[in-house]
């Protein structure tokens, strides 16, 4: 894919892109430790303080969806650690339309593990746990293989947990490890205060750790050579929907949205909207989306964030209302079932939205959906209801104008089949969901 870095120039980082994906094999093979060392050089020795400072200067933010400054998180755990902290690599990737963490873990496990070892050293963690979904066979296999050939200064083990949208949430990961239950808990205490076995726990996304592995090698100045001042560096974006070559792409922050679509082979038909940030994300109609760059400030201006780096292009042949209804039904079904406002609220929102999409509900129903999305926010133990409410509000804002039309005639749009659920075959899922909504 790109020229190998000569050993003599190990600490000179790759120019331009790819960075994280340097040396990625085109055959789909997992990069061996030897190839990894050839591409990126051996793991540098840095003091905890140096590393945290370099990460701070780099401006790196977490890539799991919360977009939190990574150095602040490292510092918070380092302060409390006293050698007893734990690092959890959160490779759950429960977002159905995201594939970047799986790509890193299956193809470039050594880069992620390097980052894990560095982060563990930086915060004084005596143990690393890599958590993945039990359906992620490729990741499990690649991690086992990678760990068997590495000699790391800290014990690293892999834990596979049940799939499910909220199972990747931080407190759910902690409760899985503590009690075998993959459900969120009431916070505080947050994981960095009291997490795995009551110890300060740093939970990081695989991409964040892979970025740390690069910053430690090539420095924060190199890191900032790409991107914008406010959003330096590169990001992995999973692009899907009506594009010719859906997949995971590494792109510099500041890249225009239209270039992101070109990177994925361009659109296969005229587009009507983009879903930015996954299922906790936001629909943006193309007239606004095409003017945006991959940058927090641009995304914020239309009320969205990059989330875990998911971009879905919706073609004009599809129906935004029906596609959204399927996603909302999925999100409602993924409630952990612990908090009333989430269990009953999301179910009611989903039923009402489905009725609106099917043209069998009136304006009053739409007002109820609006009231419910306001009311459920902030009232779960985790942010599941908040994310779902944000998605629904954006769906109403972008596709709401079509509700009247749906009431008057049958919608003849083609299914776009946004993925719901990681493990079910997509076709079967889509058919089931459509049956549920076409009463």
């Amino acid at each position, binding site marked *: 894919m790109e020229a190998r870095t000569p050993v003599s120039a190990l600490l000179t980082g790759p120019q331009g892109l790819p960075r994280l994906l340097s040396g990625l094999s085109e055959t789909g093979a997992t990069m061996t430790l030897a190839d990894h060392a050839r591409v990126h050089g051996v793991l540098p020795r840095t003091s905890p303080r140096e590393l945290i400072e370099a990460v701070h200067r780099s401006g790196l933010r977490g890539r799991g969806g919360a977009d939190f400054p990574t150095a602040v998180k490292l510092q918070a755990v380092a302060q409390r650690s006293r050698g007893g902290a734990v690092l959890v690599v959160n490779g759950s990737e429960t977002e159905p339309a995201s594939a970047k963490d799986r790509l890193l873990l299956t193809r470039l496990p050594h880069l992620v593990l390097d980052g894990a070892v560095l982060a563990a050293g930086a915060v004084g963690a005596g143990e690393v746990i890599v958590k993945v979904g039990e359906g992620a066979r490729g990741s499990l296999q690649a991690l086992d293989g990678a760990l068997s050939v590495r000699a790391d200064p800290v014990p690293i083990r892999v834990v596979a947990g049940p799939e499910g949208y909220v199972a990747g949430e931080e407190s759910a990961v902690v409760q899985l490890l503590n009690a075998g239950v993959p459900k969120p808990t*009431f916070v505080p205490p947050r994981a960095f205060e009291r997490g795995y076995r009551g110890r300060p726990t740093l939970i990081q996304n695989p991409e964040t750790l892979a970025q740390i592995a690069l910053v430690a090698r090539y420095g924060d100045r190199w890191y900032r050579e790409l991107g914008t001042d406010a959003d330096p560096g590169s990001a992995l974006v999973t692009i899907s929907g009506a594009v010719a070559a859906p997949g995971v792409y590494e792109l510099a922050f500041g890249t225009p949205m239209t270039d992101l679509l070109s990177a994925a082979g361009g659109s296969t038909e005229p587009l009507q909207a983009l879903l930015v940030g996954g299922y906790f994300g936001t629909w943006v109609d193309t007239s606004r989306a095409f003017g945006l760059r991959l940058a927090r400030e641009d995304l914020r201006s239309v009320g969205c964030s990059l989330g875990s780096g998911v971009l879905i292009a919706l073609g004009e042949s599809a129906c935004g209302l029906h596609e959204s209804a399927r996603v909302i039904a999925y999100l409602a079904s993924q409630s952990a079932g612990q908090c*009333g406002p989430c269990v*009953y*609220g999301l179910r009611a929102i989903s039923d009402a939205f489905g009725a609106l999409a099917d043209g069998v509900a009136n304006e009053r129903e739409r007002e109820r959906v609006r009231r419910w999305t306001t*009311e459920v926010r902030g*009232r*779960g133990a985790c942010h599941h209801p908040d994310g779902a409410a944000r998605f629904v509000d954006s769906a109403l804002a972008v596709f709401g104008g079509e509700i009247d039309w749906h009431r008057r005639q049958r919608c003849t749009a083609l299914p776009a089949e946004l993925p719901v659920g990681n493990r079910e075959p997509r076709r079967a899922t889509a058919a089931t969901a459509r049956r549920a909504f076409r009463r």
Partner: protein
Amino acid sequence: MSARLRVNPIMCEAHGLCAELLPELIRLDDWGYPIIDSPDVPPELLRLARKAADACPTLALLLEEGRE
């Protein structure tokens, strides 16, 4: 001294006593779960807020006093 109301949504089972005892600050949603529009408890309601927190059958209503 400041006091704030919070609900532990995992513990809450929608008994609704809180909204009866403290309607000034707590209303119920369509399924009987409490909505707290503004969590700050004014001094004149502090006594009632304590009562409501004590009355919650599942101890889901939390009154956090004296914290910033």
